[in-house]
Every structure is written in C-alpha cells, then in structure tokens.
C-alpha cells in the first residue's frame, strides 16, 4: 500500500469500480443494466451481458466416466453437473413385495405386457419402476461448488429437494421404459428352434411355458454439481438425460443350471436404453424493479389493476419486471419468484410441443400471459438443447 500510493497518486473519487458497486448494491446494479437511460441508446442487457431470454453457453459431453454404465458432464455457463448411471441387478427373490399382490389389482400385475396395448403397459411401467424403486437418483452439491458448501455437511435441503425433483420428473415423464430394465427367463421348450433369448417373444406359440421376470436392473443415477453458479436444476436434469442416453446395459440372462444371473462382457451385446422423448428443462426467475414494493404497499392492487398499471408504465418506458432465463447465482439472489418449464416435442422435434412440467412460486408477478411466453422460450430452448445433446 505504502509503496504504491506515491507512484500512482489516485485522486479521491466518489465513484466505485463496477465490481464493488455490484457487491454493495446488487439490486441497483442489475436494475441499472436492465434499464439503461433512454438517451444512451443501449439495449437492455443483464449484468452478465445476456439478453433477458438468453440462456448461457451450454456444452455437454457423454461417456466421460469409465466405471459407469453411462455418464455425462453438462456445463451451463459456470454451473457444471456430472452424472453417472450405474446399473445393479436386483433379484426378484430379494424384493419383499414381489411375491405380494393386492387382490384387487392382481390381474394387472400378473398380466404380460402386450404390445399395442399402451394403456396397460403404461400402468405396468409405473408399477414396476415406481413401486420397486428401479430409478434411484441422488444429487449432491459437492464441497466448494459454491461458497458456503463446507465439507462433511449433511445433504442440504436444496440437494434433497433437487433429488426429489429429478425423481418425480423421471416418474412423471416415464422417460425410462420398464421393459429395458427387466431380465426375463424363458423356460426351455422343445419346439424352440431359435435359441437366442429374444427380448420380443410375443409372437411365440401358445404352448410355451410362460416366461417370467427373474431380476431387474436398478439404475443408480448420481448427479454431482461440481460448480454451482445458479440454476442447478436445468444442468442436473440435462446431465441425467445425457447420461441415460449414453447408458448401455449388458446383456443379462438367467442361468437355470447355476440359478444365477449372468452378464455378457461383450460390449456388442450391450443394449442402449430406449427413452421416451426428450424432455428439456428451462428455469426462469423474475426480477422486480422495486423489490420492496410488495412490502411497502399498504394495499396490494388486484391482479387486473396491477396488470393495467404495469402496462401503463411499460408504455412510458419504465419496465417494472424482467423475466430472466437461466439465472446465474447473482440473479437468483436478487429474485424470489421462480418458474420452471419442462417441454418435449413429439416426433423427434417435428410434432407439437408438449409441456410435461410447469411450476412457478415465490411471488405474484408472473401471470398466465408470461407463462405462455415462457413456454415459447422453452420450446426454442428445446431445439438448442436437442442439437447439443445429439452432438455429445
């Protein structure tokens, strides 16, 4: 200090460098970026240089880990998630509820899945994957992924809640087909000329002994957020998706002589999972120009009044609210209202946009019109993410 001051005499100034201003007055800093003075002709940009509905640069890389059945690393800006899928065999003998059937639903569980009868197949998928817990996602926020994550701490509420979101999205989208996870056994019969155990044996004669499920694959889907700079859910879900697309299950069969399951170590025999669709998650946050408005107002206006008011102000060039796509950690700290939309497109992107999950909470700023826009933005994001995931 002492040596530097004489050589560079800095005139005392009342202005602060931007980095300090950003820390001292984060809200004012972001607001200043989003609403530049009309005279300056600058576009409204976020403090990180992105437009409001612009996502961060995303990259994905599949098959990064060696000792997993499938893995992927996804980076969205400075948020990075690693996902490893490990498949373990679960014998039906070890499932307590396997030999138990509810009298009322007995017919359902004993029925063989028939191709074409999608309705019963759907139910069966749900029954097996959900009831037997064949998908086990677990998300951990690793030590040091962001300041405040100390070693040895129990899983935080955030990590637990993200784990639940991953699991419930896996279940509600029915992404993984239960049939990929079943290990069948076809008791031998004399007519069987084709010796290879084909997975689709529906066309077989009726005289055959019924084939039975001997075991299931359980997929342990471990996600590790190695760097957290906001929006962990999008990154985590993208990494799960990429890892599942990468997952190959070895060919496994029941060996009747040894009474055990054998796996082939030939990679050529391994099968990829056939996933249903490609649901892509996009998260948003709403940034309010006057964060304390809700607190100060003695009477909060009705939804319609508020909308009219906002529109009036917008006409005057005073925007009150910005919806920021893919918020970084700085922006997340400045907003309470969050939204998340997960969309899929039918027929590999050519069909209609289907929403599989939509949520918003933490405020009353976003209304139905905003949600419609978010769905459109998410649909565009789907195209982008599909390209990235197809390339990885």
């Amino acid at each position: 200090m002492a040596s530097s001051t004489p050589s560079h005499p800095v005139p005392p100034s009342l202005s602060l460098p931007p980095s300090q201003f950003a820390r001292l007055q984060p809200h004012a800093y972001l607001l200043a970026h989003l609403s530049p003075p009309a005279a300056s002709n600058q576009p409204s940009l976020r403090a990180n240089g992105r437009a409001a509905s612009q996502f961060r640069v995303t990259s994905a890389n599949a098959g990064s880990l060696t000792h997993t059945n499938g893995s992927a690393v996804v980076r969205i800006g400075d948020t990075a998630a690693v996902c490893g899928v490990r498949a373990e065999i679960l014998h039906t003998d070890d499932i307590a509820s396997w030999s138990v059937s509810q009298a009322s639903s007995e017919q359902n569980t004993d029925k063989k899945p028939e191709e074409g009868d999608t309705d019963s197949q759907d139910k069966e998928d749900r029954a097996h994957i959900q009831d037997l817990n064949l998908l086990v996602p677990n998300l951990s926020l690793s030590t040091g992924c962001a300041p405040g994550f100390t070693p040895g701490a129990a899983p935080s509420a955030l990590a637990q809640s993200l784990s639940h979101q991953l699991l419930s999205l896996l279940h509600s989208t029915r992404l993984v087909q239960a049939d990929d996870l079943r290990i069948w056994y076809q008791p031998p019969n004399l007519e069987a000329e084709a010796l290879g155990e084909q997975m689709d044996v529906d066309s077989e004669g009726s005289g055959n002994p019924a084939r039975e499920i001997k075991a299931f694959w359980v997929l342990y889907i471990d996600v590790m957020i190695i760097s957290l700079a906001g929006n962990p859910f999008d990154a985590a879900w993208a990494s799960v998706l990429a890892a599942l697309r990468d997952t190959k299950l070895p060919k496994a069969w029941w060996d009747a002589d040894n009474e055990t399951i054998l796996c082939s170590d030939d990679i050529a025999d391994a099968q990829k999972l056939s996933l249903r669709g490609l649901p892509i998650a996009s998260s948003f946050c709403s940034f309010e120009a006057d964060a304390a408005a809700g607190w100060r107002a003695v009477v909060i206006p009705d939804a319609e009044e508020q909308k009219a008011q906002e529109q009036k102000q917008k006409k005057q060039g005073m925007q009150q609210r910005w919806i920021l796509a893919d918020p970084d950690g700085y922006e997340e700290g400045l907003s309470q209202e969050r939204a998340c939309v997960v969309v899929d497109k039918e027929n590999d992107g050519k069909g209609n946009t289907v929403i599989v999950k939509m949520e918003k909470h933490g405020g009353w700023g976003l209304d139905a019109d905003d949600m419609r826009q978010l769905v459109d933005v998410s649909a565009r994001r789907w195209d982008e993410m599909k390209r990235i995931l197809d390339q990885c």
Partner: protein
Amino acid sequence: MSKEAQLSIAERDFILEALREDVRLDGRQPDQFRPMDITFGEEYGHVKLQLGKTSLIVRISAEVTKPREERPFDGLFNINMELSSMGSPAWENGRSNDLEASATNTLDRVIRHSNALDTESLCIIKGVSCWSIRADVHVIDYDGNLTDAACIAIMTGLQHFRRPDAVVKDGRVIVYGVEERVPVALNITHKPLSITFNTFNDSKHVIVDATLKEEQASEGDLVIGINSAGELCYMSKIEGSPINPMVIVNKTSVAWDKVKELNLIIDKVLRTDLAKRAKVGMADESRAENDRLVATE
C-alpha cells in the same frame, strides 16, 4: 437451544408448599390422572388422546416387508416418536432432545421389549415376507407426562388397528383390501402401560400424571411399566434425588391399580367405537374377535 420457560421461584415454592398440605394445583389427588379422552379417526389404528392439556395422535400402519435375516419367523414392530415444535415451542424441528430420547426408550422397553405385540404372529412366509407394524406418535400439545400418554395411546392404537388379510397361494402372498375381506386384529399378548411418578420434598410426596409445571418442580421421577395381571415389565429410577425403597414397593401396587383402571377405560372406548363401526356396517365380524379379546382379558 430453545428452552421451556423456567418455573419462577414463587411458583415452585407454591407447588411444593401446596403438596405439603396434600393439595395439587388442579385439585387432584396424588394418585389421580387428569381427565382422559380417547377418540378414533376414520382409519383403524388412528387414535387421538387428550390427557389434560397433553394431547397426541398415534397412527398405526402395516406393510409387507422382508423379515430380518437372523429372525426369519418374526415380523417387525417399531415405535417412532419425533418431537416437533407443534408440541412445544421449546422443541426444535428436526433435532432430537433429551426428552425424546428418554421417552422413546421407555416406550420401546415397556411395549416392544415386553412383547406386548406378538411379532411371531406377523410372519407370513418364513424368511420371505412378514408384516411390519409401525406406530407413529405425533405430540401436538405437551403439558407433562408424555411417556404415559404415549404409552396409553399406542396400546389403544394397537388394539384398535386391523391389518389387511393376507393369504399365501402358490408361494405368492395375496393381500386383500379392507373392502374385500374383514381385516385382522393384531395379536396382543398382554397390555402393559407405564406409570410415571414424580417425587417432591425428599420423596415425601409422590404424585402420578404430573403436569409440565409439576414436572419442573419435581426432584426426581420413577417409571413403572406393569400390565393388568400385575407383571412388572419395566422400572426405572435413573436420576434425581434418592428415594426410599419402600416407596417403590408401595407405588408399584399403586401403578398396578392405575393400569387396571386405565385398561378398563381403553376397553370401554374400544368397545364403543367398534359397536359404532359395526352399526355403520364396516366391521361386523371383527367385533366378535374383539369381544373375544376383551373376554380373555
């Protein structure tokens, strides 16, 4: 750490002085319980117990699981009690405290370890499947004597609960819903309850069913677990000031009387509730079973 509001010196002196004259704050006799009210929910095994201002809800549930390797013939039975800040602002959510640990321990010993619920009767197929019975205690209002209240509510719940009927057919277990087959009562071998005594003034004054204030003024406690037949299954005098062994002997017979009295109340409310259910037409055959149970008692 949040704490219960401490008793003021004046309050403590008042309670002790009153006890010297054999008077309790609420005018009860030393061996008298507060008024007890037991109500049942719609489901079997859903019990709400109100003991003075102490109030709790017990829910019994059953599911089919795999028995433990070393005990293939036994089903599972667990008692789960987590104190949340609903019961008292002094209890923090998600953190256990001393009271939770000691009360859970006592309940485990009085009910579980005394084999009040016959776990062997929960076995379905040896080593493959069995019933797992779970008792969840939700303490919603705490004003002293948590252990006895929980014990009464769990025992009532176990006697009230009906598990779905399960039948083994070709190596498969078929569980019948409540609508399809009359659900089965649990096999209760005996009915132990815990009775907690609090001592005051060098164990000259010993009372049952202390309120929170009395507990705070007390110098020690004595817990006796005993069943209606007078068989002692648990006894603890862990801490507090020493007491005369004769007090323990005397109070054991008081505890026996109390347990008989409480079990009669439990039987009565169970009978009333089942009669009500039978009238509704939900349980006609199970009543006979319960009557038999009551008769053997």
